[in-house]
């Protein structure tokens, strides 16, 4: 009898979550498809979704495709720019987060809870507020310039907010680094201290211990953290909008946002969205499959 109860209890408990996903993910996704493959009201230029897949039209996808790979491929620079920004920001997040997570997992001792609380403290303030704070700090006469010029002694003028790609990447790193920290911490925390001691007993140096024991065992955390921050970064438009406002730092997210706000171009926004979705689906599938395999192995 207990087996029969547990057979039904979990699906029942899981049902609200499944309904939630269906309502707020699958249905909106279908609406995106219907808008993308639908038409446009000739007067108001607002989208007229085609609910019936048999009526779907593919002009907007063709337009986006042409702007990506056609002779006038002006969508390509923001796409490449986005990839570059995301790769740099993910690597930087990793470099920043790994030592912090390792320290917290292994050496924080009784202060671990406090440190963890401090690590997630940025979540308590909205992303927009944090970006607005950075705008103040990065002003020409702001605190950052005051510090790097040693209070104005060094004659150095840096305009951080003038469409500077460095500022946008720094904004991405700042905004997303906590999301990298937590999965890394979880993975590093799971490494048994006896494995590290065994490595030491077998004569591994500090670097070898890291390379041959800690790093391989932290791979699931690294992958999870990378996906967790790379996926939203790919669609991020807010950071560039706030810290740059310049076309020279436009990302895919900015293109999608512009298309949504432009009458008659919702279909193009949808096509771009689907493109990003397809690009992001590959690592997600890979991650899910590798997780399933490792679960089966364990």
């Amino acid at each position, binding site marked *: 009898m207990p087996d029969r109860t547990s057979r039904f209890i979990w699906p029942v408990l899981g049902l609200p979550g499944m309904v939630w996903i269906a309502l707020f993910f*699958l249905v909106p996704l279908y609406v995106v498809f219907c808008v993308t493959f639908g038409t446009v009201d000739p007067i108001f230029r607002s989208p007229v979704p085609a609910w019936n897949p048999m009526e779907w039209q593919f002009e907007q996808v063709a337009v986006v495709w042409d702007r990506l790979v056609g002779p006038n491929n002006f969508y390509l*620079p923001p796409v490449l720019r986005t990839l570059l920004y995301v790769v740099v920001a993910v690597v930087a997040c990793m470099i920043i987060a790994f030592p912090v997570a390792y320290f917290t997992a292994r050496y924080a001792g009784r202060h671990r809870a406090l440190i963890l609380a401090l690590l997630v403290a940025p979540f308590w303030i909205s992303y927009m507020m944090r970006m607005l704070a950075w705008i103040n700090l990065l002003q020409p006469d702001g605190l950052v310039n005051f510090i790097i010029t040693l209070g104005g002694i060094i004659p150095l003028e840096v*305009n951080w907010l*003038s469409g500077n790609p460095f500022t946008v990447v720094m904004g991405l790193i700042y905004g997303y680094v906590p999301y990298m920290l937590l999965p890394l911490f979880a993975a590093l925390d799971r490494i048994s201290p006896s494995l590290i001691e065994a490595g030491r007993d077998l004569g591994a140096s500090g670097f070898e211990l890291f390379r041959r024991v800690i790093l391989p065992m932290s791979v699931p955390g690294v992958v999870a953290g990378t996906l967790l921050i790379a996926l939203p970064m790919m669609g991020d438009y807010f950071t560039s909008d706030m810290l740059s406002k*310049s*076309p020279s730092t436009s990302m895919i997210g*900015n293109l999608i946002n512009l298309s949504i*706000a*432009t009458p008659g171009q919702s279909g193009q926004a949808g096509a771009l969205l689907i493109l990003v979705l397809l690009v992001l689906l590959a690592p997600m599938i890979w991650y899910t499959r590798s997780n399933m395999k490792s679960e089966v192995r364990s």
Partner: protein
Amino acid sequence: MADRPRPPISRRRLLQASALAVPSAWVLSSCARAQPLGSPAPAASAGGGSASAAASLPPLTEIPIASPQNPVKWPINPGNEPIASGLEPEMNATLRVYNYPDYVYKRVLKDFQEEYADYNVKVELSTFNDLPEALTKIRSGSVPFDVGFLTYNYMGKLVYGDLIRPLNHDYLPNINDVWEEFQNPFYDQGWQYTVPYTIYTTGIGWRHDLIPEDISARPNPFDVFWDAKYAGAIAVLDDDREVIAMTILRNGGTDVNSGDPSVLGQTRDSMLEMLAVSKPRVTITGYTDIPEGTMSLSQCWSGDMITGQYYLPEGVDVSLLRYWSPPTGQAVIGNDFLCVLKGGENPVMAHHFLNYMLKNDVSMKNFGFVGYQPPLRSLTPESMVTDGYIPANLAAAIVKPEWFQVGYPLLELPVAVEAEYQAIWQQFKSGA
């Protein structure tokens, strides 16, 4: 029962799951409004009056585009006649006003409530970021907005979408206080639907201490946006029409609504050149960024610089602000208007609100906050300076009535031309 890993989903299961999408599509389809292509959706009509105009609309090609050379008297659709004269304002009304952010003085709205306290009216202000967003929300009918602060290059859509209510002039005697040009504007002959709100030119604003050069002394001041000397310190408006128009003017053109492919091609090339040379930011926050010194120079509307005086940091003198637009008035020029929306529930109170906003003292009070000039007869360029509304160094931001004869308004565009403009703008904003 212990948890165990599930096998991956089979192709058959995936197909079965996909089959569920078909009924979902049917449900969505039946939820959608019946909206035949080629005709606009009928607007919600909470305030009475049937939404029958959609049926009587002419084909799309017949909808006129208003311009100074082609003034338009819009039709009044059956079922959308003006309200009768002599009606009492609605009691306990919530007057829903729809506007850009920071584009009306809230004190003025409170004063209106006080003036109509006998009717227990409450003014509720909602804001939109741009007109496409506003139009979408007005069309949806989800909120019964009574009054809209809108722009004339959307007149065709407003009238033919049956979204706007014709005015009864008996309720609007204060129209006599505004310039004659706006008692019979080209975009609404006979002011059947609109009353003017503010007027403006588009030009260049800067802070003199950050840009010591006298931009206005250049043979072509618009060249400043193509000057590598100011790379990273300047901005253009986040508005496709304004930037394209400025580029056309800079290249020696005068038709800022041009659909000529060669003009548009040249304009696109110039805009991309600007991007490469001066790396401008794209923003509409020049009215705070320039006074605060975050930005040195920006394309902006005249009202932005007048408002800018209130955003100066402590210790920065107002005399440092500058504005330039062609002094002959041959600039991009425009105005916004007030109208009564058809979906509103309080058309009589809405008429009273329009009349109130036209009132000389109310209009002046509002001007003192928003910085955008109302087209009032009582205002002269001299009085605006002597009365302290505009500092002398920003006198170029004052719009003169005769400029509406020579200026270049941004007009509604044919759909194909509009698509060309959008493509140019997308290329520019993608930083290609």
